[in-house]
């Protein structure tokens, strides 16, 4: 089970992405997401795919880690395709049977949305795979600092984020343990009927919820015991610095947004 979870799974390597400041990575990711949302034609999709493939290659992280992250969203993607094929209306009718009618545009629409989600997930996993969750939360915190004026609890929020990311693998491991223990008590997970399958997960969900809540309570106490929120502002062991490469990457990202904007305008 653990191998299917991508979020919060940092893979160590020495690529350019690993060395970047988390802030520049966040800004760039934001730019790239905007750029990808601007795509509305085939050349845009080709360019975006090339960009993603290039980034994945540069990251020095084996492709299988990216693919594993896509597995859990496959059902959603499949559903999206079918939804569009069945319900989107177009001009070129391809097939009709009683109330069911399928248009050429709807097929294109369905697959292009899936491709877009695919690319977005891949580029986002690039961020989580190359950045330690704590660094990410730190970068996020600094970027959101201006919100503090509006009384938004930036620091608390960033700690919350860091803890959430950090505990996903732990909870998945716990889940594995509970599944094994309940198997030893004779639970059969290979039952065919859907209702039975869902019911067979109750012995897993309840212990998992219980241990997670207990863990959360302990963690809250431990954080309190280490004087969190006692004084004015926390200092940092690790201080972030922008370097030349960070400015370059942000520049490139802005350029990418420009290119995709132009592509949309030109419409070719």
């Amino acid at each position, binding site marked *: 089970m*653990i191998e299917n979870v991508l979020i919060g799974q940092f893979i160590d390597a020495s690529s350019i992405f690993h060395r970047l400041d988390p802030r520049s990575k966040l800004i760039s990711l934001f730019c790239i997401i905007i750029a990808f949302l601007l795509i509305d034609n085939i050349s845009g999709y080709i360019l975006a795919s090339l960009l993603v493939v290039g980034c994945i290659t540069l990251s020095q992280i084996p492709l299988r880690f990216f693919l594993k992250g896509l597995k859990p969203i496959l059902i959603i993607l499949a559903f999206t395709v079918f939804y569009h094929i069945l319900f989107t209306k177009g001009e070129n009718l391809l097939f009709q049977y009683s109330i069911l009618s399928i248009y050429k545009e709807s097929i294109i629409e369905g697959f292009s949305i899936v491709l877009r989600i695919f690319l977005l997930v891949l580029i986002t996993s690039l961020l989580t795979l190359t950045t330690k969750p704590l660094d990410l939360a730190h970068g996020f915190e600094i970027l959101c600092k201006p919100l503090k004026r509006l009384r938004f609890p930036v620091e608390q929020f960033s700690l919350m984020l860091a803890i959430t990311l950090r505990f996903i693998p732990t909870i998945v491991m716990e889940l594995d*343990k*509970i599944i094994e*223990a309940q198997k*030893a*008590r*004779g*639970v059969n997970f290979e039952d065919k009927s859907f209702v039975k399958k869902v019911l067979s997960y109750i012995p897993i969900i309840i*212990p998992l919820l*219980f241990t997670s809540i207990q863990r959360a309570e302990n963690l809250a106490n431990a954080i309190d015991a280490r004087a969190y929120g006692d004084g004015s502002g926390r200092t940092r062991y690790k201080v972030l610095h922008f370097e030349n490469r960070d400015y370059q990457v942000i520049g490139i990202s802005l350029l990418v947004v420009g290119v995709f904007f132009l592509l949309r305008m030109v419409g070719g």
Partner: protein
Amino acid sequence: MDIKLERASYIYPNSSINSYESLRNINISIEAGKWISVIGHTGSGKSTLMKLLKGLIAPTTGHLLINGRVNELSKKGKAQIISDIGLVFQYPEHQLFETTVLKDLVFGPKNQGIEMKEVNQRAKEMIKLVGLSEEYFQKAPLQLSGGEKRRVAIATVLMMNPEVLILDEPTAGLDPLGSKLILQLIHDWYKAGGGHRTVIFVTHEMNEVAEYSDEVLVMNNGEIAFLDSPLSLFLNHDYELKEFGLDTPDTVKLLQLIEQRFGDYIKVESLQEEVVLREVIAYFKKQGAEV
């Protein structure tokens, strides 16, 4: 039931996470009716070995033999849970999930498809065996104390009427009295089988090992380092055990202390507290001390 592992090894599929817990070249034969303690430092592969014996995971290479026959599915690399072997995991109380103790107790046997009349009868016996009363049947597991929860959790496994009981650190995190009660109940269950029940007991508590076991299995870095009687292991291999970061029972320390101080080696038949103390007292009486 005899269990045997032949040239078995196990490597975790996602080796990046658990690689230190993998097993290499395990050859072991466990005869029915024995109490076997398993010791070894954290990460030496004890828990993995226990899962292998229960059939929760299949050996990567080698075979698991039950009563001399190869567990067929384990040959094909697929796990096959062996229902006659009960496995109590670490912190088993975390696996309780029903609204009442009774429902949790009958959960396993119901999965095995056993008649309700028989299951209820077993529940009554088991709650008594673990030192609780039938009043506990309608309580919610979460209302119980830590030690009570642990005892109920062990009872849920005993409810499935196993011939072999594997326990992975069943006393971890309990107070001395709680630990003693757990050990006592396991021993009662073991004795009630009249020599047919087997206990495989993972522990870090060497006094427990000396007190109950027929044989001790020492794991080190995913391999079996020793399989010996407690007497021979602790007296002849205490140096190696120290190398592995393992302790010796108090009785052994006492015997060694006397040997150092008085130069006499007291011969004992076992390392059980009662036996050793009797011999030590006899020794001092012979020396003319008033005991």
